[in-house]
């Protein structure tokens, strides 16, 4: 019996595979909050570790070091990861653009930004590039607007909250907090909506992307497919049960307060789209980013191989 026991143990340890799932803090966390909190079993024999990376630094390094089997990252980081490691593929979108043009001033559209001080985050990074791409498509010269930058939303919100800045681009869920702190802030336009109009796109531009490690996929395709299905469910659930989702997110370690999450869900554009339904969105988005700075994609537009297609 002794021998038998050992052998079954061995079997168990051989079968129970560790899967590392990494998400960035914020909206992507909500997408998987149900799975992580309820420890939903995706498939027998898999042992799932969820971790939430709170800073861009830890998120990007753990992807680049290929520590994640599955990760939810900004969509340009998906391209960088593919170009630099050749080991990550896009499996789907979990959220489209959640950036909004907000202002305390009385404006209604992008063309009224001309001549104004407008604040954005991360000069040369994707929020900036996305805005500039929209402006270009709308025929507004970016030189006609006085852009001001701070590093991240964390620095931008206090400026808008105190009125030191009047107009800017803020993503959810920070936007919800901002409106609470400064009720005079009005939402002028959603970047995603504008993008849809301009590009005749159904969903808008992809913001959060679920990527999977190719070497992991090869051996665990079933698991991945099951997981993607569960993510889709989890997102649907979160969109319907905002309060619960907020609590869950907090409990699994998200930084944002539950009620903020709850209130922000409406504008968050969380939505699971499989990659074969959104390839074109990525291609459009990447080619627009490429027009501004190839480095934002890790040097070049990723080839077809980046798109994970089920066989």
């Amino acid at each position, binding site marked *: 019996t002794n021998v038998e026991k050992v052998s079954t143990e061995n079997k168990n340890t051989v079968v129970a595979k560790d899967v590392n799932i990494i998400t960035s*803090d914020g909206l992507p966390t909500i997408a998987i909050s149900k799975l992580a909190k309820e420890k939903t079993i995706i498939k027998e024999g898999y042992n799932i570790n969820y971790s939430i*990376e*709170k*800073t861009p*630094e*830890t998120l990007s*390094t*753990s992807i*680049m*070091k290929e520590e994640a089997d599955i990760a939810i990252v900004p969509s340009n980081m998906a391209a960088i990861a593919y170009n630099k490691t050749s080991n990550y593929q896009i499996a789907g979108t979990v959220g489209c653009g959640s950036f909004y043009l907000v202002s305390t001033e009385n404006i209604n559209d992008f063309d009224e930004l001309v001549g104004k001080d407008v604040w954005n985050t991360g000069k040369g990074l994707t929020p900036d590039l996305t805005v500039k791409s929209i402006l270009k498509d709308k025929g507004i010269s970016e030189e006609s607007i006085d852009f001001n930058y701070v590093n991240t939303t*964390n620095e931008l*919100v*206090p400026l808008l*909250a*105190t009125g030191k800045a009047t107009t800017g681009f803020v993503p959810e869920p*920070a936007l919800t*907090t*901002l409106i609470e*702190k400064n009720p005079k802030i009005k939402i002028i336009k959603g970047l995603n909506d504008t993008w849809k109009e301009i590009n005749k796109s159904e969903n808008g531009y992809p913001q959060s992307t679920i990527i999977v490690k190719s070497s992991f996929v090869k051996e665990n395709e079933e698991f991945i497919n099951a997981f993607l299905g569960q993510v889709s469910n989890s997102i649907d659930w979160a969109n319907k049960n905002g309060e619960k989702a907020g609590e869950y997110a907090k409990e699994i370690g998200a*930084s*944002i*307060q539950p009620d*903020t999450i709850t209130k922000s869900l409406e504008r968050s554009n969380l939505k699971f789209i499989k990659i074969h339904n959104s390839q074109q969105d990525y291609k459009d988005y990447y080619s627009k980013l490429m027009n501004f700075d190839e480095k934002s994609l890790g040097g070049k537009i990723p080839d077809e191989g980046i798109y994970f297609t089920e066989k």
Partner: protein
Amino acid sequence: MKAFTLLKNKLGKNIVEVVLSCTILLFLWECIALFINNEIYIPTLGQVFKSLNNLILETGFFINIFMTIKRTIVSILISLFIAMLIGVSGYISRVIRNFFRPINMIIQSVPMMILVVLALIWFDKDNAPYIVGVLVVFPILYENILGALSSIDKTLLEMSNVYKLDLKDKIIKIYLPSIKFRLATIIVSTMSLGLKVVIAGEVYGQPDYGIGSMIQLEKVNFNTPGIFAWLIIVIIISGALEILQKLILRRTFIWKR
């Protein structure tokens, strides 16, 4: 007796004036806060102390502080160990000294932020605060150890050779004390620096517990009173370190007139 009272009076005056200064500062703060009346710019004392109180009641509060201090101390001990090793080698051999010169220069000029990213890439993210702490503290300790050794009174060494002291005695009675006296004067400011750097490392590396992680959390939620509350805690720790410095100096230099 008279001298003692005099000294005490002077010390007393200093303390009174410092306390007065603190009071004035707090008062000014409160006035400005009430005037501006916007907690994002500057929270009132009341808001900050409420935050502070909440923080202290939270589970994990002391663990956060403990972990940060632990990281600081461990970083300093590791740096000390390496600095002793390389410092002594550098004292003995000019070649080694020159070999480490560019390395030190490079370490010292790398901006914090790059240091953190490289630490994250090359090492485990939980170790990032240590790595950053060690890299910032090491050059300081190394230069001081090397400096202490090089500035040992040559005449004492001559004396110890004439009287044929053992190497062991020379190390225990001359070399180590010289290093000790030098380090005693800088160890606490180095710890302060280490603390700040470790906190910065925590902000980026986001270990589970740590003051830096907490500050970042408050920042993400735009909770200015919370940031100030942590600030007060950091200032209290720094204050405690300053007192520690005084004690260390008094103990170490009892032999000075």
